């Protein structure tokens, strides 16, 4: 969500102070407003709330896990991250990416109905969440709810989605954009790793397409991690993602617009446009290798 350039921050601060001192908020009464924030005097607040004035969206690991199951890819528990890493991760970058990785593993185990692994993964998430001071999102109550609903895939996916959204909200509210970005990066890489690590994936066109369709998400991720990495702690992650980005640059796509259909009664719009991606076998091989490298680096 982009709104204005970061260079306006200083100007905005000065202008805000000036207008506030002059009682500049009178303009508010000129039109009906239900929102009470007096931002007439604070044109820089957008930057205070966003990374470089931009907002990014990264696909949910749950969607990727569901796509893998739908394609019939085999569940391979041994591909998931070692849970001991929850103890071993010592710095902010390692902890943040691990939290994302575990989130993707949790979705993977849940959609494949491995309740035992899902529970163990949730416990590891709680540990890492504690290290990152996210106890408001991943707490004992969540673990208890998770445990008592192990038989309900829908409930587990709902709980984890709500918990990760709460964590993202908390991190953004507290200006910890770097942690938020790295959690998303870890989750995205792990989802891709689980997908490409199945030898059958290369032969399944639906899955190959799904891999190629990650191109725009990767572009957003690179920008997000880079923009939020104020202390340089995520430099290796940025380098790895950029190398992966250069491989994805060779993925081509087509798009054809079709008129959408809206059913107002059901509050639903059916989007019927078509698209396709093309990804050569050698490109896919290179992507698989790079994703594995980045994932291993995150877990090292």
């Amino acid at each position, binding site marked *: 969500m982009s709104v204005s350039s970061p260079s306006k921050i200083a100007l905005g601060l000065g202008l805000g102070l000036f207008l506030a001192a002059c009682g500049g908020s009178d303009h508010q009464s000129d039109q009906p407003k239900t929102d009470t924030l007096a931002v007439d005097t604070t044109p820089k607040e957008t930057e205070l709330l*966003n990374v470089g004035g931009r*907002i990014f969206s990264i696909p949910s690991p749950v969607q990727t896990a569901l796509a893998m199951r739908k394609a019939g890819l085999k569940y391979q528990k041994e591909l998931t991250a070692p849970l001991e890493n929850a103890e071993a991760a010592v710095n902010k970058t390692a902890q943040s990416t691990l939290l994302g990785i575990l989130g993707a593993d949790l979705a993977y185990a849940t959609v494949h109905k491995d309740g035992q692994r899902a529970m163990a993964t949730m416990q590891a998430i709680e540990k890492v969440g504690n290290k990152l001071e996210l106890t408001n999102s991943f707490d004992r109550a969540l673990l208890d709810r998770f445990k008592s609903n192990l038989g309900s895939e829908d409930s587990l996916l709902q709980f984890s989605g709500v918990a990760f959204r709460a964590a993202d909200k908390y991190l953004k509210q507290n200006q910890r954009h770097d942690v938020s970005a790295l959690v998303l990066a870890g989750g995205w890489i792990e989802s891709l790793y689980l997908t490409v690590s199945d030898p059958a994936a290369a032969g399944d066109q639906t899955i190959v397409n799904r891999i190629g369709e990650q191109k725009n998400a990767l572009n957003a991720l690179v920008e997000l991690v880079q923009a939020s990495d104020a202390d340089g702690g995520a430099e290796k992650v940025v380098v790895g993602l950029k190398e992966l980005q250069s491989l994805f640059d060779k993925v081509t796509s087509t798009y054809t617009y079709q008129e959408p259909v809206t059913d107002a009664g059901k509050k639903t719009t059916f989007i019927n*446009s078509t698209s396709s991606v093309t990804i050569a076998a050698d490109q896919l091989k290179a992507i698989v290798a790079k994703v594995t490298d980045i994932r291993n680096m995150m877990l090292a």
Partner: protein
Amino acid sequence: MRRTLLILSLSASIAGSAQEMCGTIADRCEQHITKQYIPDGQFYRALLQGDEMAEFNLTLFGGTTYRVAACSGDADGILVFNVVDKDGNVLFSNKDQGNAPYWDLAVTNTIDVKMEAALDPTKAGSGCAVMLIGFKK
């Protein structure tokens, strides 16, 4: 030095109140992502004023029904949002549906879209825009 401290103090105070306001709006907006939908795990927000438009890109995967919730202020219907494809075609606008606070998008094929959000100028001149996304299995 004193001036710098004043600026820092004021900006921190402004940010704090803005965060609080966004949090309250988010709590209300979460009610629109009902239990049939799995939250995508992200929280999208920006402060807007006047005719500013917030936007972000996202990939909608084929075979999925998404729920998009858009909130601002203290009531539904204040935030206008559009879903625009890569060629600039508007695939959906809640403005055509009475500024509906949420809508479902049933996606046949994977597409990259841009989500745009702006305040309805007849209802608000400034405020925190919150968008949330969920999807059905």
